[in-house]
């Protein structure tokens, strides 16, 4: 499907700044009209150009390489692939670029072209597929704690170590633990994108995808449930750890978590992705499309390391030499 402007026929997109659909051609607001495509769409609904190159196995929304129109693949946002929830983009493209500059602009060893206008303008907004799990948990923890007391008597130092059995039972209900369902997106990076503000969660509407790329879930909720259980187990262990205090050492003997899945909902969450190629390697940077949080590791230009390092060395050596000369006059 494609959203076209009733006024001019251009491709309307969701504008995060305005919070509504907008036509970039005639500036019309809420002038969209949904045009559905065929079940197996292979060409652009706007210009007819083939879309084979930009439609991958899991693509649900893409951009026509010929006319730049944003196309949503009907069969991949419907039926079993219909998202239950969505958080619409709140951070615009320009804001995302500003956030990248703010985060990485002061890094001295990055290549000169890293945040150049030509490079960074290739940033793309993507709706990443997530499953959100609700779990009720009951946990049983056993551990050993030690308390140590030392004192001196005569020529001897005494150390008394007291051992305690620690027992905790914790009941916790988890709400919407997110696990990304995209193989393309790095799990560690997606975990670092968290948290999203769930107050902005809405029921899925196709129009929010216009102007962005998107994927359907690559794996189903059963396959990904183990990651959710791992995340909530880590959280439970941390909460129990917080309840234990006053010991010199604590060692865990056992932790049994009984996790009952209550609900798993398919959701789309907004992420800006910037891919920078350098030295034959792709460096990926992500900006949370709702909160603006930035994640990514910058590339290093060896020439800059040498030039800046040598200059620091030269300046410090020169300053030390001058201080040496100055102090020699007073010693």
């Amino acid at each position, binding site marked *: 499907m494609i959203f076209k402007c009733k006024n001019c026929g251009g491709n309307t997109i969701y504008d995060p700044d305005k919070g509504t659909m907008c036509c970039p051609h005639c500036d019309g607001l809420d002038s969209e009209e949904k045009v559905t495509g065929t079940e197996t769409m292979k060409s652009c609904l706007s210009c007819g150009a083939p879309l084979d190159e930009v439609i991958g196995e899991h693509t649900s929304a893409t951009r026509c390489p010929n006319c730049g129109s944003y196309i949503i693949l009907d069969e991949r946002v419907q039926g079993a692939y219909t998202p239950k929830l969505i958080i619409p983009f709140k951070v615009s493209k320009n804001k995302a670029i500003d956030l990248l500059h703010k985060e990485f602009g002061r*890094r*001295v*060893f990055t290549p000169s072209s890293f945040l150049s206008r030509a490079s960074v303008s290739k940033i793309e907004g993507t709706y990443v597929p997530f499953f959100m799990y609700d779990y009720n948990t009951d946990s049983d923890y056993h551990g050993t*704690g030690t308390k140590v007391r030392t004192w*001196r008597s005569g*020529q*001897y*130092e*005494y*150390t008394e*170590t*007291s*051992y*305690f*059995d620690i027992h*905790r*039972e*914790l009941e*916790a209900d*988890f*709400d*919407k*633990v997110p696990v990304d369902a995209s193989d393309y997106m790095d799990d*560690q*990076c997606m975990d*670092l994108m*968290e948290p999203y503000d769930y107050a902005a969660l809405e029921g899925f509407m196709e129009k929010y995808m216009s102007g962005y790329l998107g994927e359907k879930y690559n794996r189903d909720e059963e396959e990904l449930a183990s990651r959710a259980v791992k*995340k909530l187990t*880590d*959280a439970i262990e941390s*909460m129990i750890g917080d*309840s234990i205090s006053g010991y010199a050492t604590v060692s865990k003997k056992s932790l049994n978590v009984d996790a009952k899945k209550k609900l798993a909902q398919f959701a789309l969450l907004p992420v800006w992705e910037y891919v920078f190629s350098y030295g034959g390697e792709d460096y990926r940077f992500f900006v949370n499309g709702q909160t603006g*949080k*930035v*994640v*990514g*590791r910058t590339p*290093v230009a060896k020439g800059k*390391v040498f*030039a*800046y*390092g*040598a200059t*620091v*060395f*030269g*300046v*410090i*050596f*020169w*300053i*030390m*030499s*001058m201080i*040496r000369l*100055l*102090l*020699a*006059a007073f*010693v």
Partner: protein
Amino acid sequence: MIKYLRYFAIPIIVAFVLTVISLSVHSGVENAIDYERHNDVWDHTDCVYDLACKMTDEEAEELRAYIVELEEECLADIVVITLDDPEYGYLSKVREYADSFSEEYGTGYDYPGGSSIVFVDNWSRGGDGKIHSWISTTGAVRERLSDSECDDILNILDEIEGDYADPYDQYREIVGKLAGKAMPLKPPYSMLIAFIVAVVVAGIYIIINITSKLGDVTTNSHTYVKGGKGNLKVSTDTFRNKTVTRRKIETSSGGGGGGSHGGGGHSR
């Protein structure tokens, strides 16, 4: 390039300002120093007495010329004396000899009894079977050349092999180091220290700027817990047992230890 220059603008300006200040102050102090010799009592060109005949005449002459050259830089008279006299077979005796030399002959660059360094090496082995040496300093040079520095410099004598070796090279090295340490404008640290500090700072700078983390973790254990916290149904801490160990406290004991002359001695 513009970014590079802008980045280093402040450090370069600081270095430039410091250079101007250092050169001005240094040259001002240097101009205030009296480099003129004011001693007509002591003939400073007669500064090598090889009474033990350990050097050739040519070597003694070369050492003499070298010393005359150094004296103008360190503003102190330098005298080298070799003895082969059992009367001075003790370190205390060699010291007495060295200390009395400057008083007796009026050595001193600035005035008789002023800045001078007298190095005495008595080749006659004493009752303990050792060769004893002493460096005596007088006048202003005492403040510039510490006793411990004299001791360190005299360790060069350990390189002399046997009683019949030619000590010219070691004497020349000793004289050079004494003059270096006695310079009136003595820097508080060497250029090697400046080099090492610069390498360390540059290394730290590179490490700090080259390391980057993927991102900060901004969730916690309660982020997805309904109501913000779990329900701790059971929380018990039960005492099980205790152990007691003892160790003997180690005790340690220790202990620790002036005139018109300074200097240091050495026995080999």
